[in-house]
């Protein structure tokens, strides 16, 4: 502390001397005397110490800047590596922060509460909050029953109809109740918000509020946007307001969002999942999320108690079909919560771990570069220490260099982070990553930069500070005694371990994507198209619905190139099946979920059109329909898939057996069909198929088998359906397109982890190449002597590569251990389709060893090719 003052340095000796003299008489008195004086001296030198430290910082900063300028290649490479790492980390951490931790931009967000419907049987089970949205009918009942909340509002988010000018990956529509904005307490940036007057009468107020981002991006910040007409679906909406900047509502789905009254839902008829299930009435066709603002002095517990009472009331008065209805009240002060988003948080966390590991490898390479630099500057450091520079000063200077590099990297990282945020938002269809710069983002960047400096700056700094000046003056290597021969080995070992982890993880995801691509779905996807249509409003009687259905099939069948067409509510990969208790007279329906079986309504000839082979029996025919007077959903025949047949009749032939399905306790099994696999999960679930013509439906899908490529017929099929006055907004897609969409997530994941693994491997190869080159340079003289004494090139290879072998073995073992842990976490989140099998381990080991072996072999071979005489002449 007193090193910068000559008298301060002498003070230490003076204190020791005085202490020794006093200690001869009284040790206690001597100690007291010593510390009193030491404290007095320290206090007096503190201001000058602080001043000199600041002075040193400025000088060391200037010195470090000069040193970095002298080695521009190193500086640029290190800055780019750090910028990419810092940017990627910042983007992912920023996204997690935005979604899970940042409060909503509304007044008193902590008083916003949302009410979710669920099943009492699922209480306490993970994912409970994602059970069900709330129907409009239930919403109306809740409005009169819930206490402790000022008023309840409701919203539902849908994608815009395909082909709309505003539709795209990122534009979403929120259908909201009239008091939505009032409850949230936000004021419009321009124009006005949707109000209670815009709710009624139904379909009479085609007005829309647009988000600030949408206004800027798609309307180019038009000053006269209010009053502009936007065609959405078949309705022309009028823009009445612009939401304040940063406000995206309560939903993380999209930052380019527009809000419209929920009473425009039928005019817009977005195809939500609910509309595919057999409808029970118009009130039940619109589902959404209900929320409100806590009244003054009300607590969450009071609202929950009131919601519990409401659930009991609705069940007791037969106001709900769900006999196990429960409501869950939660504070909703953020875009989403871990409870709401299910495994998304874990997936984000895993993605961040991948990126952080990659960043660690990149930092290790920068650390290696700095270590090599510090070795090259050993003489300079030794001379500076001989001239009086303290170890602390050398340490600080190395740290300042690391900080300067990190600050350069942080500048680039911010720019990279903003670009990555945009990409992430586009990939994940999220609103959260509005590229922005505020104190929270800066804090995150600072955190990442701090961690980065620790990762790449600490080792080289301590290494530099342990330079032995005497050894340097004698012309030696300058390493202090007791310092390990090579810290670079530790760095490369870490790189190998991290690379192994990432490469093994990439192998797992690539294998999954391959399995998805090669697994047969159980039907012939080629030459298959699916047209989704909704029935015209007011078409509620079964006979009208069935007539419209028959009309649609006739029109499609008449299209040239169509070989067969049939209908269904949903098609493979459509999430439109529903669950119900399915049992046989001999089995007992339990409530543990095992008897909750997937059900799907399909038309006559569905399996033949799909190309899914029947194992036994027959499929539905045109005769499988109930008379118009029969109750709804009274199925008399059922087709089961093999999985359900195995579950219900493990040792018996199901054909002709009686089965109980929701709506009918005595249906007869008439056919068994092969399992249809979901290509994304490579799994088949037990499923019972019921006749479409024995249900009511508001929308259905026409499954079309074409003679030529399905894509050619898409437009003609759409035109044929559009010509019908009974149908609305047909959307036609080929089955190949639907399959590609279902597999896109895992393909993107495979691509992402493969890029991470590849980059980590590349950086490790560079690191290994560097370390073997360094070993060869350090042992040049020894190698020359060995070669002169008759050593073969094999001996020299062994000398250099045995060290690499040790590094590889240890690193690979460590990496595999980590990979196993990560895959276990992923397995828990994604499902059993993720597994680290022997093939994945073998392939990743092979890739690592091949790349690392090549990287180490090249410098080793160069070492064996040098002439012994030349080496001895120049090295000794």
């Amino acid at each position: 502390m007193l090193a910068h003052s000559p008298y301060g340095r002498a003070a230490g000796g003076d204190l020791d001397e005085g202490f020794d003299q006093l200690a001869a008489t009284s040790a206690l008195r001597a100690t007291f005397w010593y510390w009193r004086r030491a404290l007095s001296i320290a206090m007096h030198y503190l201001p000058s110490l602080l001043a000199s430290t600041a002075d040193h910082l400025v000088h060391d900063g200037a010195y470090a800047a000069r040193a970095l300028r002298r080695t521009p290649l190193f500086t640029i490479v290190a800055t780019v590596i750090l910028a990419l790492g810092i940017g990627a980390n910042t983007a992912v951490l920023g996204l997690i922060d935005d979604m899970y931790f940042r409060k909503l931009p509304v007044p008193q967000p902590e008083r916003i509460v949302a009410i979710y419907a669920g099943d009492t049987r699922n209480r306490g089970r993970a994912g409970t909050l994602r059970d069900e949205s709330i129907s409009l009918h239930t919403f109306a009942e809740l409005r009169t029953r819930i206490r402790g909340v000022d008023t309840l509002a409701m919203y539902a988010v849908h994608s815009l109809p395909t082909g709309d000018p505003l539709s795209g990956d990122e534009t979403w529509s929120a259908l909201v109740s009239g008091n939505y904005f009032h409850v949230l307490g936000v004021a419009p940036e321009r124009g006005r918000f949707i109000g209670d007057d815009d709710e009624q009468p139904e379909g009479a107020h085609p007005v829309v509020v647009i988000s600030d981002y949408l206004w800027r991006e798609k309307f180019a910040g038009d000053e006269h946007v209010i009053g502009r007409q936007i065609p959405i679906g078949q309705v022309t909406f009028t823009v009445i307001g612009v939401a304040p900047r940063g406000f995206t509502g309560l939903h993380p789905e999209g930052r380019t969002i527009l809000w419209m009254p929920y009473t425009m839902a039928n005019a817009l008829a977005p195809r939500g999942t609910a509309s595919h299930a057999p409808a029970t009435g118009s009130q039940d066709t619109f589902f959404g999320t209900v929320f409100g603002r806590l009244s003054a002095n009300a607590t969450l517990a009071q609202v929950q108690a009131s919601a519990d009472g409401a659930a009991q009331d609705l069940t007791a008065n037969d106001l709900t079909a769900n006999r196990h209805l429960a409501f869950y009240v939660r504070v909703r002060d953020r875009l989403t919560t871990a409870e709401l988003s299910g495994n998304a948080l874990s997936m984000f966390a895993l993605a961040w771990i991948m990126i952080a590991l990659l960043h660690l490898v990149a930092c290790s390479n920068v650390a290696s570069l700095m270590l090599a630099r510090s070795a090259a500057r050993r003489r300079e450091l030794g001379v500076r220490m001989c001239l009086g520079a303290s170890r602390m000063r050398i340490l600080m200077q190395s740290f300042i260099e690391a900080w300067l590099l990190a600050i350069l990297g942080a500048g680039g990282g911010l720019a990279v982070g903003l670009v990555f945020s945009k990409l992430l938002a586009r990939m994940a269809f999220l609103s959260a990553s509005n590229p922005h710069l505020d104190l929270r983002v800066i804090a995150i960047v600072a955190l990442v930069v701090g961690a980065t400096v620790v990762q790449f700056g600490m080792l080289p700094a301590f290494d530099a500070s342990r330079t032995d000046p005497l050894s340097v003056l004698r012309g030696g290597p300058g390493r202090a005694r007791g310092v390990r021969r090579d810290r670079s080995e530790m760095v490369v070992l870490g790189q190998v371990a991290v690379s192994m982890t990432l490469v093994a993880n990439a192998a797992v995801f690539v294998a999954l994507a391959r399995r998805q691509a090669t697994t047969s779905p159980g039907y012939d996807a080629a030459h298959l198209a699916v047209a989704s249509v909704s029935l015209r409003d007011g078409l509620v009687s079964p006979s009208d619905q069935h007539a419209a259905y028959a009309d649609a099939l006739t029109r499609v069948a008449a299209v040239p190139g169509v070989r067969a067409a049939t209908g269904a509510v949903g098609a493979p990969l459509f999430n439109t099946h529903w669950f119900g208790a399915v049992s046989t007279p001999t089995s007992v329906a339990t409530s543990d979920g095992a008897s909750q079986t997937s059900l799907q309504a399909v038309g006559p000839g569905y399996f033949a059109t799909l190309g899914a082979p029947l194992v036994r029996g027959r499929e539905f025919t045109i005769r499988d329909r109930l008379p118009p007077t029969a109750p709804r959903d009274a199925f008399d025949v059922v087709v089961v898939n093999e999985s359900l047949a195995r579950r219900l009749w493990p040792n018996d032939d199901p054909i002709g057996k009686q089965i109980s399905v929701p709506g009918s306790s005595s249906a007869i099994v008439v056919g068994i069909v092969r399992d249809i696999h979901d290509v994304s999960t490579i799994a088949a679930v037990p499923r019972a198929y019921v006749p479409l013509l024995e249900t009511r439906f508001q929308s259905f899908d026409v499954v079309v088998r074409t003679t030529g490529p399905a894509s050619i017929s898409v437009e003609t099929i759409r035109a044929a359906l559009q010509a019908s006055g009974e149908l609305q907004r047909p959307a036609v897609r080929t089955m190949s397109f639907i399959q590609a969409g279902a597999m896109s997530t895992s393909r993107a994941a495979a691509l992402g982890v493969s890029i991470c693994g590849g980059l980590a491997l590349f950086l490790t190869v560079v690191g290994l190449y560097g370390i073997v080159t360094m070993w060869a340079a350090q042992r040049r003289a020894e190698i020359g002597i060995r070669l002169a004494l008759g050593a073969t090139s094999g001996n020299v290879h062994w000398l250099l590569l045995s060290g690499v072998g040790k590094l590889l073995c240890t690193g690979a073992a460590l990496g595999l251990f980590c990979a196993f842990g990560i895959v276990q976490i992923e397995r828990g989140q994604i499902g059993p389709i993720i597994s680290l099998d022997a093939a994945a381990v073998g392939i990743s080991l092979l890739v690592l060893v091949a790349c690392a072996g090549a990287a180490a072999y090249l410098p080793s071979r160069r070492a064996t090719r040098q002439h012994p005489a030349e080496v001895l002449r120049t090295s000794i």
Partner: protein
Amino acid sequence: MPRPALGEFEQVVLLAILRLGDTAYAPAILDEILECTGSEASPGSMYVTLDRLEAKGLIRSRLADATAQRSGRARRYVSVTAHGVRQLRATRASLLALWRGLEGILEPC
């Protein structure tokens, strides 16, 4: 005659150094001040003052041989430079000029 630019504690330290002669080093100076003035000087102030006096060119220092008793660290002996002596003289003259004529009030009866 140079203008006096010495603080009170600087004068005290310089006078103690002159009194000690060749054996002046920090602990001895502190003892000398205590003995002559009857009050103990702060060790911290003393070291900082020595730094300042050397920076002003009023004292110079030399290192003695290192001893084991002092953990291998040498004593730093100080002596007053000619410039320091001139500064002391100037300060003394200034003070005497101020004292002059006040003997009737300030000298003890």
